[in-house]
C-alpha cells in the first residue's frame, strides 16, 4: 500500500488539483453571469460589470495586507502577558 492510498481522498494532490480547477470554473461562470442578470443598482458602480467579483477580491487582499502591516507593530509572542 503506497502513501497515496493512505491519504484521505480530499487531501490527495489529484483531488486538490481538481478542486482548484472546479473553483476557477465556478468563478469564471459567476463573472460571466453578470451578462445575464440585471441588478437594480443603487449607486451606479454596483451595477457595473464584474463589480462584486473584483471588489470582493481586492478588498480582501487589501484587508490581508493591512493586517500584515499592522502586525509589524502589534505582533507579540503569545506568552506576552504571562507572568
Amino acid at each position, binding site marked *: 500500500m503506497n502513501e497515496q492510498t493512505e491519504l484521505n481522498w480530499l487531501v490527495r494532490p489529484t483531488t486538490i488539483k481538481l478542486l482548484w480547477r472546479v473553483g476557477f470554473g465556478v468563478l469564471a461562470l459567476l463573472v460571466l453571469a453578470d451578462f445575464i442578470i440585471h441588478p437594480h443598482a443603487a449607486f451606479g458602480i454596483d451595477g457595473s460589470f464584474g463589480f462584486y467579483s473584483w471588489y470582493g477580491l481586492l*478588498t*480582501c487582499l487589501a484587508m490581508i495586507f493591512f493586517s500584515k502591516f499592522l502586525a509589524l507593530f502589534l505582533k507579540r509572542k503569545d506568552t506576552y502577558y504571562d507572568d
Partner: protein
Amino acid sequence: MTISAFPPGILLVLGGLVLPFVAPKVRATIVLVLPLIVLWSIWQIGDGVQLAVPFLDYELAVVKGDALSRLFATVFAIMAFAGGLYALNQKQVSELAAAFVYAGSAIGVAFAGDLITVFVFWEIMALGSTMVIWAARTPESYKASMRYLMIHLLGGILLMVGIVAHVADTGSVAFQAMTPHSFGTWLMLAGFLINAGAPPLTAWLPDAYPEASFSGTVFLSAFTTKTAVYVLIRGFPGAEILIYIGVYMIFYGIIYALLENDARRILSYSIINQVGFMITGIGIGGEMALNGAAAHAFTHIIYKGLLLMSAGSVLYMTGGKRKCTDLGGLFQSMPLTCVCGIIGALAISSFPLTSGFISKSMIAQAASDQQMFFVWMCLAAASAGVFLHAGIKFPWFVFFQKDSGLRPKDPPWNMKAAMIFFAFLCIALGVAPGPLYDILPFSTSYEPYTVPHVVNQLQLLLFAGLSFFLALPLMKRTLTISLDWDWFYRRLGEWLVRFLVRGIVEMRRDILATLSSLLESFIRTTFRSHGPDGIMARTNAVGPSVAVIVIMLTLFMLVFYIGV
C-alpha cells in the same frame, strides 16, 4: 398576577439557582425543560406593561412586551436550551447554574420597560457571566474573569450614573427611544456600548470568552453583546455615531481575527465584527435597518453558538487544543463537528440558503435605500471579509490545513445533538425566512432571494475565498497575539502603578532616612553633653564651685550697681 405575567427571565434565574442543589437526573430535566417553559411563557406576554411594581416614587414596568422584546427573549431562550443540551456533560454544575442566571437576566433586560429594571438585570448578567468564565477553574480564566468583571462593573457604573442623570432631567424612568444629547443619555449610551464590545473597550471580549470552558464560551457568545444590541435598538435607534462605531467594529474584528492563532479567539473577534454590523444598522435607523439589526442578532446567536460548539467540541475531544498551529486535518475523524462548523461558517458569511444571508442583507439594503454610499461600500467589503476571517479561516485551519496527526472522535451525543439542532436552524431560517420575518419589530415585505442578489453575493464571497487561497502563505499561523487596547490597562497601567509605587516607596525611604539621621544627630548631640563623659555629667569639687558662685554674684552686683 397570572402565571403568564410571571417574568420569564426571573423563572430562568430561579431555575439556575436551584440547579446545584438537585440530583443529576433532575438537573438534566430542568436544564432541558425549563428553557422550553420559559419560551412558552415568553409568547404568553402580550403588548404593553404586564407587571408593574412600585419602587420608591416610581412604578417599575418589570415586564413589558412588544415584538422586539419577544424576538430577543425568544432567541435567548432557544440559546439557553441548546447551550444547556450542549453542556449536559459539563462537570462544573456552577457553570450551568451561572449560565441560566445569565440567560434569565438577559431575558429580563429584553422585557424591562423601565431603566431601573434594565440596570438590575444588567448587573446580574455581569455577575452571571463572570461566574461562567470562573467555572473553567484555571488560573488564566480566573485572571481573565477579573479583568472582564472590572470592565463590566465600569460599564454598570456609567449606566447607573447615566440613568440617574436622565431621570433627574426628565423625571421618568421609562425605557424608550432617546437621542444622545445630554450628560445622562451619553453615559447610558457609553454603558450600553461597553457591553457591545465597542471601541476603545473591545479587548475584554477576546480576552475573556476563550478562557471559559468548552461549553461556557458558547453561552458567553450569546447574551452580553446581544442584550447590548437590544437596548441600543430600543434606546438609540438612528443615532448617527453608531454608524461609525459599528463600521470600526466590523473592520477591527476582521483584521484582528486574520492575525489570530487561537481558534476561539478568532471566533471572539468575529463576534465584535458581527455586532458591528448590527450597530451600524441601528445607526442607519429606519424600519429596514432596525429589522435587519434585530434579525441579524437572532441569526447570529444561532450560528455563532454553532461555531463555538464546533470549536468547543474540538477543545473537549483534544484535551484543550485550540491553537491553529496545533490543529488541522480533523475533518477525517470528526466529520459531524466539521460539517456543523462549516454550516456555521457559511451562515456567518451570509451564504445564500443560510440564516446570515436573509438577515445581514437587510442592513446593506437599508444603507442602499438611504443612499449611504460609503457605508454601503464598507458593508460590502466587510461581508467579503467575514468569509475571509471566519467563513474560511476557522474551518480551514481547524479541520483541514495540514495533518496535525490528531484523530479525535466526534463529541458525546448531547454535544452532537446541540450542533445538529443549530445547524438545522441555520439552514431552515435561510431557506424559509418567513417565520423570522413575521416576528420582527416592523412588518416587512423584504425579499432576499432575487437572482441578482444571490449571484452578486456569491461573486463577492467566492472571490473573497479566492483571495484567501492566493494569500495563503501570508495567512500562515504563528505563535503570536496582537496587541489591543487592553495593552493600556494590562501593561501601561501596570507600569504606571509600578512607577508610582516605586516613587512612593523611594519617597518613604528618603523620609525615613532623613528622620532617622535627624534623630541620630539629636541623640549624638545629647549624648555628647549628657552622656557619661558629657559636660553635664562631670563632677566638680566644692571649692571651685563656691569660687564660681562668688564670681557670679560679684558680677551680678557690679552690673546691678552700674545699671542703677
